């Protein structure tokens, strides 16, 4: 195998370490990290290199609520090194039926702070960055620029469309899910490699076709199911393994426990990612349409 100066130690590597003999490793993982992530490292698709990729990854979660909570927990457990959380809300009692990153003692606390405390207790390797404000056209480009991937757990259409347009401009992949009652949807948007959110939904629906969870209710476990599917997508994208849901929309019916997969094509007429979409000059990069009016119309 090309090795030189080879010796054999009775007792193997453990005895070698016990004797304090030097170990040269190309890995930056500490012994504690090798132990913590051992179940990942055993996977051929992950290994030490993959775990290091995850520790170096920066993922932004928009929303530390229903979808954000389970996604953040499992990304933190996986060792995603930097997790940004955007939410301007505080924990309420009615959240605790599904937002499992929070708890009763944290009612009234900012959601990002509550989530950070849970994440830090779960995995001190993770650097949590709190963004206690709402995304809008004035701040979105600056916020998302620092991250590799974005997780969309947003609860309203204006922000979903804003996020889409900004993420396409900056070529940031977005893992997007939504839940309502007993149903969920998830897809992954990688700019110019597959469709964008506007290719899928060119126009937002009127209010009567898009009720909120607070109006219609949602099964708590739905947040967990779809949130973990989001976490799974983030990990696949970070590691470059498997088949992310690019060009696919996965629907989940929890009453029937049935998944349905639909194809999503790039729209050649898409005003954002289509071949004829206008070039955005530098001076226009931070300017977006008035999304609230757009969606209200």
């Amino acid at each position, binding site marked *: 195998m090309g090795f030189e100066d080879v010796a054999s130690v009775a007792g193997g590597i453990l005895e070698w370490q016990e004797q304090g003999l030097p170990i040269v490793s190309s890995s930056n993982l500490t012994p504690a990290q090798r132990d913590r992530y051992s179940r990942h490292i055993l996977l051929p698709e992950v290994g030490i290199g993959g775990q290091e990729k995850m520790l170096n990854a920066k993922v932004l979660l928009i*929303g530390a*609520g*229903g*979808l*954000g909570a389970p996604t953040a927990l499992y990304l933190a457990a996986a060792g995603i090194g930097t997790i940004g959380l955007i939410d301007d*809300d505080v924990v309420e009692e009615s959240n605790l039926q599904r937002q499992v990153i929070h708890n009763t003692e944290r009612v009234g606390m900012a959601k990002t702070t509550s989530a950070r405390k849970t994440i830090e207790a779960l995995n001190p390797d993770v650097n949590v960055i709190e963004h206690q404000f709402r995304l809008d056209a004035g701040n979105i480009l600056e916020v998302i620029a620092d991250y590799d991937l974005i997780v*969309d*757990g*947003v*609860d*309203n*259409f204006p922000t*979903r469309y804003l996020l889409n347009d900004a993420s396409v401009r900056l070529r940031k992949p977005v893992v997007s*899910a*939504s*839940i*309502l*009652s*007993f*149903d969920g*949807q998830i897809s992954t948007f990688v700019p110019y490699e597959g469709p964008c959110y506007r290719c*899928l*939904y*060119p*126009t*937002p*629906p*009127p209010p*009567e*076709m*898009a*009720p*909120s*969870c607070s109006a*219609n209710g*949602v099964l708590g476990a739905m947040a967990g199911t779809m949130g973990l599917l989001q976490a799974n997508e983030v990990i696949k994208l970070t590691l470059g393994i498997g088949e992310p849901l690019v060009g696919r929309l996965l*629907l989940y019916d929890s009453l029937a426990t049935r998944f*349905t*997969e*639909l*194809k*999503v*094509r790039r*729209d050649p007429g898409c005003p954002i990612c289509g071949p004829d979409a206008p070039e955005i000059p530098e001076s226009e990069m931070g300017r977006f349409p008035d999304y609230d009016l757009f969606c209200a119309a």
Partner: protein
Amino acid sequence: MATIKIPPVLRAQAGGAAELDADGATVGEVLRALTEAHPDTAAQLFAAGGELNRYVNVYLNDEDVRVLDGLQTAATSDDTILILPAMAGGN
């Protein structure tokens, strides 16, 4: 008869059904049959000019009819037509 999957937001207008069968040789005919049987679904599905509302996606099996022949897409008894509005709940 093709099978139509009704999204939760339309089920009240469709008599509470999650799934219905309807006659028609094309997607458009099948959806019209749905609106004739359940008139309250019409305004959500079709614009005044008779075209599909832009905020409603309709799938024939796993393909958006916009990339097929739109409402003229042929439909058979082996096909499933899925009505898919966008969903924004996440919190």
